């Protein structure tokens, strides 16, 4: 981590960048938050550890409008989001100095709490220099231990890879974290009967409180005016009144980012209700791959996006799968 701070200080001092976009220590060991750092003194609060799951690429839309360059730290998966924004002309490449940082998988505090570990005071074994296989957690009720792998964010188990697709330089080592099949969950749902599918999503989506966190955090949701803010729309920001609205919001949200979603998993990470929102996005990704050929949003800026492009030989919507 010190490496990152030193490099940031250097770049600030020699005038390459005007500000640094990174993660700042939060109140607790497990909640660092995205922040701008304008000076060397500010950087004393900079952190980069296993809880820095936040994707900073969306903040670059705002930073692109500011004077001078911004130094931004992007994890491998974040760089896909940045590249996608670049493709959509939402960020300015010339305004960004990108340091690709390594990643050993990020942690999910909810999973730690689910292990029965409460009253957390300190956590060790989360730094980039650590081996990252066991966490030692100091709590109000004594010291606890848990396996790093078990409490990783869902998205890290199905990681796209540890190579950055866009960067000026890279720092820190990564570690492969993949240990499950990306579309496994989606396939499991596809095999259910219509009634089972419906019950499954009813249960999942009835938890939604329409806080819009998933929309706000999503790097692909970057419209200046959003359909969900319109007062003429039934699903304007308010609690859902019936099962239909619960679903409509999520279908529309997922559809609006279809073909642009990089599967960065931020929606599922920030959901205060723990809804597995990636199940929607991943279904679209799976279908796009299956119907129109493998496509990874954000991988290549020159590739045609699946929904703004067509082939004469495309399949018919009524066709059965397979």
């Amino acid at each position, binding site marked *: 981590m010190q490496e990152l701070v030193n490099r940031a200080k250097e770049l600030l001092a020699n005038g390459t960048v005007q500000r640094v976009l990174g993660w700042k220590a939060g109140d607790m060991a497990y909640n660092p938050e995205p922040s701008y750092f304008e000076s060397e003194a500010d950087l004393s609060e900079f952190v980069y550890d296993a809880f820095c799951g936040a994707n900073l690429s969306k903040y670059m839309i705002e930073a692109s409008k500011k004077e001078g360059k911004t130094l931004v730290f992007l994890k491998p998966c974040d760089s896909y989001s940045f590249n996608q924004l670049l493709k959509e002309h939402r960020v300015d490449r010339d305004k960004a100095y990108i340091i690709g940082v390594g990643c050993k998988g990020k942690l999910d505090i909810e999973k730690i709490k689910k292990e029965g570990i409460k009253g957390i005071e300190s956590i060790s074994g989360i730094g980039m220099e650590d081996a990252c296989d066991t966490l030692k957690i100091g709590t109000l009720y004594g010291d606890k231990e848990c396996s790093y792998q078990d409490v990783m964010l869902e998205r890290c188990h199905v990681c796209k890879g540890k190579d950055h697709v866009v960067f000026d330089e890279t720092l820190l080592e990564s570690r492969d974290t993949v240990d499950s099949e990306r579309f496994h969950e*989606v396939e499991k*749902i*596809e095999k259910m009967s*219509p*009634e*089972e*599918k*419906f*019950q*499954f*999503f009813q249960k999942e989506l009835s938890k939604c409180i329409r806080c819009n966190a998933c929309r706000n955090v999503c790097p692909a949701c970057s419209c200046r005016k959003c359909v969900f803010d319109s007062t003429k729309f*039934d699903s304007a920001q308010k609690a859902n009144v*019936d*099962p*239909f*609205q619960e*679903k*409509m919001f999520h*279908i*529309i949200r*997922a*559809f609006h980012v*279809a073909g642009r979603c990089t599967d960065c998993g931020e929606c599922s990470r920030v959901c205060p209700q723990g809804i597995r929102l990636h199940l*929607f996005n991943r*279904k*679209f990704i799976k*279908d*796009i791959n299956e*119907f*129109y050929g493998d496509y990874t949003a954000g991988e290549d800026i020159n590739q045609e996006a*699946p*929904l*703004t492009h*067509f082939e*004469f030989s*495309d*399949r*018919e*919507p*009524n066709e*059965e*799968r397979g």
Partner: protein
Amino acid sequence: MPLTENEFRPKIVAFCCNWCSYAGADLAGSSRLSYPADVKIIKVPCSCRVNPMFILRAFEKGADGVILCGCHPGDCHYSTGNYYARRRMTLLFSMLDYLGIEKGRTRVEWVSAAEGVKFSQTMNEFVEKIKSLGENVRLGDLRCKN
């Protein structure tokens, strides 16, 4: 055939493009071909005009099935509209299926202005299909059901 009191009459929304399918429906009418009165046609400028929200809204308001009709691929009045609609609807229908809305409740059919027969046939088939699936109890706003 006399209508018995308990017979299920589905509500079906058909989005028809202005240039081909709507004219096709017109031809079906002027050729005296019959199709069930359960089908409510909504004219749209192009099949591509159909926003996924239209389909969802139709289901919300109590539709049991939604069908989208447009020009045959290659014949779009705006050259390429139906190609984009085809991709969009493929993904949307697959998503609805994933959520438990049976695939049979959604359909896309290409009907040209000269295909009055095809229009009436398609609608007859679709209504039969929806009748066999029964009322759409999922993805509907309960307030809209009588």
